[in-house]
């Protein structure tokens, strides 16, 4: 663009100010939502727990106590011990770390892939769009159990492998969402105006189009973390996820099936499930609160 340098500077400055005000408004509206604020607090706690798991957990996640096999909750083992004499509280704390680590990896990967594919697909349209969307369809249609099993057989069960096939499973949905957003905004008047003013594709995308989709993207992050934790639990349950003794939450819940034959073991099910359900719900509410705050028009929409 042929504008004097000074003017371009004020231009970006103005944009930055506008963005500042926007996020300040979002925060103001978000703060009024008591449920969302409480869930934000919970999310903060969960993140802190997962970062400081090493110092918070009283024992190691695979320390076995011969004297304390399948004990109920007591002062020594707060959440009791499992059938191998491992402290359940420590396992849940380490589980938070593992589940969150995976969820963050998956969410960032999904975000990157779906932002790039969704934006390009929506912006360029045509055969490019068709091809990308068909690829997304292939990943939606492929039964995930076959895909996951093949992946872990070939590449092992490291967190990276699990993250990769989780991304394969999650990106088609969010790429489609991003594409829909781009389609919605790309014919807006301000895009037309930007183009008339001589802005190039890159500038239109970065400074006009993407910032408008940004609130939804941010809100999608929280949801994606919840979905990633849910998916991980399903993989662990179907034995294509983390392996013993790694205490991911899904692994803990899956292992608690042995308890369905004996009432003494019910704590093995209750505590991991509570941690799991609370975490997912908290992330969901924060993301819903954020979306409502960013775009009050969408309130109540799912």
């Amino acid at each position: 663009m042929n504008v004097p340098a000074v003017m371009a500077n004020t231009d970006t400055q103005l944009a930055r100010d506008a963005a500042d005000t926007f996020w300040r408004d979002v925060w103001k509206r978000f703060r009024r939502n008591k449920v969302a604020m409480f869930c934000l607090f919970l999310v903060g706690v969960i993140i802190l727990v997962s970062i400081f798991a090493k110092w918070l957990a009283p024992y190691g996640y695979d320390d076995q106590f011969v004297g304390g096999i399948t004990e109920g909750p007591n002062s020594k083992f707060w959440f009791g011990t499992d059938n191998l004499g491992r402290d359940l509280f420590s396992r849940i704390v380490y589980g938070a770390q593992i589940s969150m680590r995976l969820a963050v990896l998956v969410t960032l990967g999904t975000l990157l892939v779906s932002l790039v594919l969704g934006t390009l697909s929506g912006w360029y349209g045509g055969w490019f769009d068709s091809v990308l969307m068909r690829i997304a369809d292939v990943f939606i249609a492929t039964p995930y159990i076959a895909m996951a099993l093949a992946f872990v057989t070939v590449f092992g069960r490291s967190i990276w492998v699990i993250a990769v096939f989780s991304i394969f499973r999650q990106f088609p949905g969010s790429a489609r969402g991003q594409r829909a957003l781009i389609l919605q905004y790309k014919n807006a008047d301000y895009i037309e105006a930007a183009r008339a003013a001589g802005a190039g594709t890159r500038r239109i995308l970065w400074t006009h189009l993407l910032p408008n989709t940004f609130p939804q993207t941010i809100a999608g992050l929280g949801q994606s973390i919840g979905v990633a934790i849910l998916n991980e639990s399903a993989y662990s349950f179907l034995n294509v996820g983390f392996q013993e003794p790694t205490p991911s939450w899904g692994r803990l819940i899956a292992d608690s099936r042995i308890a369905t034959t004996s009432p003494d073991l019910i704590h093995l099910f209750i505590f991991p499930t509570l941690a799991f359900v609370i975490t997912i719900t908290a992330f969901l509410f924060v993301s819903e609160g954020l979306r409502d705050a960013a775009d009050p028009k969408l309130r109540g929409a799912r």
Partner: protein
Amino acid sequence: MGTYIVRRLLHSLLVMWGAVTFLFLLLLIIPGDITTQSGDTGRAMTPAVKKNLDRLYGLDDPVPIQYLKSLRRIITFNFGMSAQNREISTMLKQSFASSGRLAFWGVITYSVLGVITGVYSAVRRNGAFDRVSGAQSILLNAMPPFVMGILLQFALGVMPGPLKWDWPKWTHFPIQWDLGQQRWFGIIPLGTTWKTLILPVITIASVEYAGQARGARTVMLEVLRADYLRTARAKGLSERSVLFKHGLRNAFIPIITSIGLAIPNTFGYAVLTETVWNIPGLGGTISQAVGQQDSATVLAFCSVIVLITIVVTLMVDLLYGFIDPRVKVQ
């Protein structure tokens, strides 16, 4: 409309081909092949035996030929034999019978109950029912099917002392999925078969029930705010006629769409439900087949799943045009 269907079908074929190719490649890069997984593991396989097995499973062909042969088997529905020397088409029939019945009743349950719950909470907005069902949806949304399954097994089975609940006798459902005891007429359970079905169906339906209830509520709230509903009230129609004829009919279009979008997920839920309730079905068969690197079986099962998914989505789309005539015009 005709060209639309043809185009959709072509797209679907493309997607199916993509999925089959993707899986073929994945199975190809797993070290070893079907012959390393079958037979007595204690003894070393002589080259002659290996050669025979290779010929039996078509492994002596170059990879592209194997690939084309797999495609031919799928296109002609002539799937051949599995690693355990069973007709794959028989295995398909058996697995899809049990998973399909489960999935069918799951879909029926969550659609019907979800829509009723959602619509009723919207009509009585902020009432007691709305609040309870809202909280319940949130909870169910965060509980994958197997958590629901384990929870049911606890609640009806082994709750410890103080929490132990004396359930009335009619709720004593069998926890075993005994195919020998079951009698079916197509997809309709006969006799007491419904008793073995009910807990797995609750398990498979719980997550989507929550989603559908929330979705239906949102849609219905929007419809209730619409101008045409005010008009209907203004011209003096009875409340029932306003709600059912004018409200619900319009709400049904997005509701059907969201149910249709949820159906492909149901196979995923079915796999989890089958595992938690020990039901022999798709999930078990597929994971066994992948474990044995039995690519013929894996590809057969996956292509049928993909096919069903595609047909269902297409049907939902057509139904959409049927309910909302405006769609046909486009």
